[in-house]
Each structure stands twice: as structure tokens, then as C-alpha cells.
């Protein structure tokens, strides 16, 4: 049929996408003796990932107990910073944590590590191949097609990531809408390990995760971030697309995103951290916001399981993003469902539905619904520019009085008046914010 006899054209499981979710599912299934084909569109392993940021370890350790010892971890996050910025002024909170809950990593390196493990465990791993469609027969996924080649499988795991071309073609999800999408732009600035440790006041394997609010995005809904790698700093912006488009259409904003990140890099409050640095990499990536709207109707279809970003399993609360650990965990649930099906009479839709059930009863689903109002609030331009502005004004009145200094109470009342916010509005809005984030 294919002119290449003696090649396997039938697998137990085909996994499309070798990111954290796909690699985790492939690793667990291969270890259990399933015949697995893991297919990656990128050139290397997980080439399409740009995320260089914070990854939460506990759910990942459930699949990869060797994570802490073996994985390419840049630094463990022991310091959390949140800054509010207005013009050149800034307020920063810092929290020094005790436990090693999250680490900074380049996702390309982390997924390379994972997919290599999957291959070592026996998964057949191919790169540089784009899958054109998940092939359906009588309403059931039966394999994948790439160009002229069809490969058959009992179960197809869709781990294609945020841009779900395959699921769109199947009519399972709609085209990406700006409402659910944020644009991340990032630069990696080489500064040297010693500089990082002295300027952030860190021990050698410790790192900082830093979230920046206020007018660092020039009023666009979104925020800035800074993460410390071993010898470089990742910095960048996340912008909510829907609101950004509105802003541009209403003439409130007409600058290119590259200029925004440039201004962030030259900001007098942050610039000293990367003085004399070389920009070693830059790029952009899409990420999910409003995950609960982004989810497919079901996580399991006949012959098909949807994992990771493709399943909308990414939590964004405005101050934390959790996608990698959710992806790994969903890969684990998918692998368990496949195993369950094999042990219970076959890969029927009935058996595979346990995946859907387990996702819905997992901590991920619970968390996503608990925080579901957060993106909306965090993207509320008034809320996100007004509060930093009030706080900054309070600080200004307290600390920048040349002859007299205001009491905290007077400073707050004056600031509220200047920003035209009543004290009761402040309390009720703050309560709404605290409740959902």
C-alpha cells in the first residue's frame, strides 16, 4: 500500500504532539508495553514551545519521580515578587518561600528531556512530520494521516497544543478566538549567573518569579514577567488579544508589541537588572486565557483523547500560570484511561470515557473553575490600571513629601479622590478580586 513493506503501520496509541502532555502519555504507555507512536511537527523535540518560565513540580513528580535530580532545571523559585508600576514609579512586594514547589526551566529543554525518556521507554518517536488529519471512521478515530501516509491506531491522543488545527478540522472545537487567547512576547537576556545571584540576592540554585502590573503594558490588559534562569533573565509581556484589538480599533493604542517590550527593557526600575546584557533569544507564543471557555465539550471522544493545552487545561490567575504541570497530569490521566480500557475489554468509547470523568474530578478542573473569574478581572483595564495607580499615589504622598508627609489614611483618601474611586467601591471590588484569583 505504501511501497515500503515490513514497516509498522498500526500502533496501539498514536500521540500527536511531543510537548509535556504528549511526552508524558507516551512515556507512561510505552513503559506499560503499549506500542506507541509519538509524532512531533517541530524539528527538534518540542521545538514549538517558547515558554521559558515557571513550572510547578508536584503534579509532574507523579509522572516523573526523577524530576528534581535529572530534569534540566534552571533555578528553583524561592522568591516571588509582584510589582505595580506607573511611569518610573514602582511598588514591589517580595515573598521568600520555603518549599521547592516550582522551578524555572526552558520548556524546549524540559520537553526534550521528557520525549527522550519516552523514546528510551520504547515509544517510536518521529519529528518534522505534520499530521494533516485525525482519520475518523464511523464516528471513531482510527488513526492519523500525513500527506499520502495513513497510520492506524486503537487510540489517538491529541496533544497538539493551543493551536488546535486537527480538532478544528474534526469540528470538535471552533477556530481560535481572540477572547480566549493571550499573546506572550519574550526576550532572554544573558547576564551571567553571578550577576543574577548578586542583583536578586539569591543562593546559587534559587530563582525569582516576578509579575509586573500597571502601565508596563501601556494600558493594555495584561502584564509583565521576569524569571531568572541560570545565567540569563527571561522577561516579557503577556497581552490579552481581545482587549488589545479593542484598544487598537478605538485608537487608544497604535504601537507595535515589539516597542512595548523594548520600553520594558529600558524601564529605569528594571534596567539595572540586565545592564550590559546581550539579547540571546526572542520570540512570541500564544497562550490560553479563559480556559473554561476554551475547553472542548468533552475530553474523550470515540477513539480520541484530548490532553494538555488542546484540552484547555491551563490556569491563568493573573499572577500565576500553570500549564506545563497540568499538561503532564492530563497526559498521565490519558495513559491511565488507555490502560484501563485495555484491561477492561477493549478501547471502546465507554471505557475511554473514564478519562473525561477523571479530568473533571481532578484538581485541575476544580482549580480552573475556582479561578474562572480571575482572567476577566485581571483583564479589566480600569481595575488593573486604577488600583496600581491608587497605591502608587499613596506611596508617593507618604514618601515623596519634600517638607511634610501625609498619614497613611490621608494619603489613601486623597489618592481615592484623585482617581475618583469611593472607599466602598474599593472594598467591594477588592473583595471580588480576592475571591476569584
Amino acid at each position, binding site marked *: 500500500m505504501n511501497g515500503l513493506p515490513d514497516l509498522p503501520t498500526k500502533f496501539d496509541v498514536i500521540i500527536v504532539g511531543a510537548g509535556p502532555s504528549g511526552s508524558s502519555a507516551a512515556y507512561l504507555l510505552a513503559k506499560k508495553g503499549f506500542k506507541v*507512536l509519538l509524532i512531533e511537527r517541530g524539528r527538534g523535540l518540542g521545538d514549538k514551545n517558547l515558554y521559558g518560565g515557571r513550572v510547578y513540580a508536584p503534579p509532574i513528580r507523579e509522572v516523573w519521580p526523577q524530576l528534581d535530580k535529572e530534569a534540566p532545571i534552571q533555578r528553583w523559585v524561592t522568591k516571588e515578587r509582584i510589582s505595580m508600576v506607573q511611569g518610573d514609579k514602582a511598588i514591589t512586594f517580595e515573598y521568600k518561600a520555603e518549599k521547592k514547589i516550582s522551578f524555572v526551566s526552558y520548556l524546549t529543554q524540559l520537553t526534550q528531556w521528557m520525549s527522550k525518556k519516552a523514546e528510551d521507554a520504547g515509544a517510536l*518517536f518521529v519529528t518534522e*512530520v505534520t499530521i494533516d488529519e485525525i482519520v475518523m471512521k464511523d464516528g471513531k478515530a482510527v488513526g492519523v494521516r500525513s500527506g499520502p501516509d495513513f*497510520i492506524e491506531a486503537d487510540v489517538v491522543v491529541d496533544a497538539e497544543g493551543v493551536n488546535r488545527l486537527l480538532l478544528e478540522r474534526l469540528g470538535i472545537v471552533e477556530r481560535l478566538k481572540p477572547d480566549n487567547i493571550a499573546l506572550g512576547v519574550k526576550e532572554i537576556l544573558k547576564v551571567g549567573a553571578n550577576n543574577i545571584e548578586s542583583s536578586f540576592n539569591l543562593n546559587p540554585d534559587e530563582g525569582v518569579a516576578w509579575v509586573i502590573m500597571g502601565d508596563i503594558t501601556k494600558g493594555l490588559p495584561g502584564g509583565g514577567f521576569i524569571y531568572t534562569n541560570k545565567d540569563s533573565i527571561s522577561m516579557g509581556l503577556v497581552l490579552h488579544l481581545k482587549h488589545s484589538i479593542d484598544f487598537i480599533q478605538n485608537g487608544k493604542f497604535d504601537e507595535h508589541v515589539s516597542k512595548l517590550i523594548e520600553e520594558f527593557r529600558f524601564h529605569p526600575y528594571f534596567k539595572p537588572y540586565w545592564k550590559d546584557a546581550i539579547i540571546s533569544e526572542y520570540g512570541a507564543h500564544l497562550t490560553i486565557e479563559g480556559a473554561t471557555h476554551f475547553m472542548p465539550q468533552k475530553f474523550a471522544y470515540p477513539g480520541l483523547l484530548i490532553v494538555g493545552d488542546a484540552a484547555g487545561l491551563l490556569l491563568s490567575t493573573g499572577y500565576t500560570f500553570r500549564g506545563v504541570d497540568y499538561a503532564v497530569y492530563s497526559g498521565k490521566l490519558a495513559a491511565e484511561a488507555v490502560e484501563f480500557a485495555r484491561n477492561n475489554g477493549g478501547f471502546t468509547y465507554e471505557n475511554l470515557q473514564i478519562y473525561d470523568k477523571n479530568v473533571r474530578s481532578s484538581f485541575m478542573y476544580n482549580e480552573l473553575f475556582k479561578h474562572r473569574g480571575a482572567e476577566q478581572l485581571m483583564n479589566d483595564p480600569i481595575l488593573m490600571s486604577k488600583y496600581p495607580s491608587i497605591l502608587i499615589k499613596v506611596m508617593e504622598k507618604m514618601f515623596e513629601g519634600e517638607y511634610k508627609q501625609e498619614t497613611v489614611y490621608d494619603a489613601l483618601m486623597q489618592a481615592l479622590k484623585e482617581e475618583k474611586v469611593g472607599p466602598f467601591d474599593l472594598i467591594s471590588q477588592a473583595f471580588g478580586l480576592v475571591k476569584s484569583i
Partner: protein
Amino acid sequence: MRIIVGMKWVPGTTSVRIDPKTGTLIREGVPSIVNPHDMPAIELALQLKDAYGGEVIALTMSPPPAIRGLEYLIGMGVDRAILVSDRVYAGADTLATSYVLAKAIEKIDKEIGKVDLVVFGQETIDSSTAHIGAQTASWLDWPYIYYAHSAKLIDNNKILVERVLENAIEDWEVDLPAVIATHMKALKPRPVRLLNKIRYKVEKPLTTWTNNELKLDPRCTGLKGSPTIVAKTVDVPEVPRKKVIYTPKDGEDAAKWLIKTLMEDEKASKALIKALKEGGGK
């Protein structure tokens, strides 16, 4: 037909930066790729195989990371690949490289089967010498045609090669075995195929030859076998830039601002006035 196609694994950019302190290339963060100008050569070899049957063997002399490039070629449909890799081949100029390649081709011809055709790309993006095809043909004493756009077999031991030049199209009848180099714009390469990639993983149709297999005199290979002498490299010092960003209202504003800013600078204004005088400007 048995066709050998040459491949070079090169840094994936034409603007590799140079470390100002050491004068060496900064390879960090620059992933390597199959030399893009080799792609038409690979496509031509595969088209000839599609038309006349036989096999296509990819050949490279390189450190082992080039295996990723060979995997890509097998993904496109190349039947097998040979990596020639040994420390004594390191530091080779084009003469020493083509010598090793020619000896590898002779070994293929003797041990795997009669070689009919060798195809190279026009040149590489990292050194642009275009020497390898011609030199390999010389070592083998086989005819050589370059800037090839297409080729077809006209009888069992003859091909017709079409060269497209700036002002002429030439057809050449060439006796086999022969070496040809394709024009960089000759053919669009085919994409990799899923089944070919699976085949690569299952069958691993890849052989590595070191100097244990080729048994070449180390005086003729690598740095020792390279008569090219880099007499001097001129390090062009980086000019400190002012890095001013100006957002003009329109083209006229941009021009005015540029002239004004340049005229304020002593050096720039002199250069500008000189250029205007020489160019006959006002």
C-alpha cells in the same frame, strides 16, 4: 541507478556572529540545518530514482551531530546514509574534504555497488566556495557539470543535463559515472514523509565510517591535508552605536530628522557632505 548525494550540516543562518575577543564563531543558540543549497541536489537525486529506480545514498563528512540532517534526508526518501567521521578529518579545507569524499565514493562503488552519479548542491551557505563538486570529480576523474537544473537518462550510461545560465540554456550529454552540481534554484525539495521517518527509526539505515574503514593517509586529510592557509583574519571592531529611536510622522519628517541628526555629529556630517559632493548632489 545508484546515486550518491552530498550533504553538509551547517549553522542555520547566514549571519553567524563572531566573538570579538577570540575571533571564533559563536555557535551557541544557532541550530544547524541541512545546507539549503543541497536541497535541489537531493530532490534531483530522488526524481531520478523515481524515474529509473535504484537507490539514493546520502553522504556527508562531519562530526556526528550531522546525523540529524541525514535523518531528514531519509525522511525525504533517501534510501540510506553514510556519515564519514573521524578526528583526523577535522579542520579540513575543501581539498582535504573532497579527497575524503572521493575515497568514500570509491569505497561505495567497490563494496556496495557501482555508482552511476554523484550530485552536490551549488555551494554551502557557511563557506560559499562551490569547490566540492569540482574537486571530487577531479579526484575521481569523472566528468563534472554544474548549475544543473534537471537531468534525464538517455541510455544506460549517459545522461542529458540541462544547465540554465543567465543568457543561455545548455544541454550536455555526459557519460556516466559523472558528478553534477545543481543550481541553487533548480528544484523545490519534497517534504518529509511520515512512513520514511518511521522507517528511519525502525531500520536505522545509517552507517558511520571512520578512518578505520577508509584507511586514508592522515597527512592527506583534516588540517594536515589542507594547503589553504588563513594568513590573517581582520577583526572589524564593533562600532559603538548611539541607539536612538525616533518615531517620525511621515517620510519627510524622517528625512529631515535624519539629516539634522547627522549634521550635528562631526564625523557623520563630514562624511555626508563628502558623499553629496561626490555624488553630484546639491
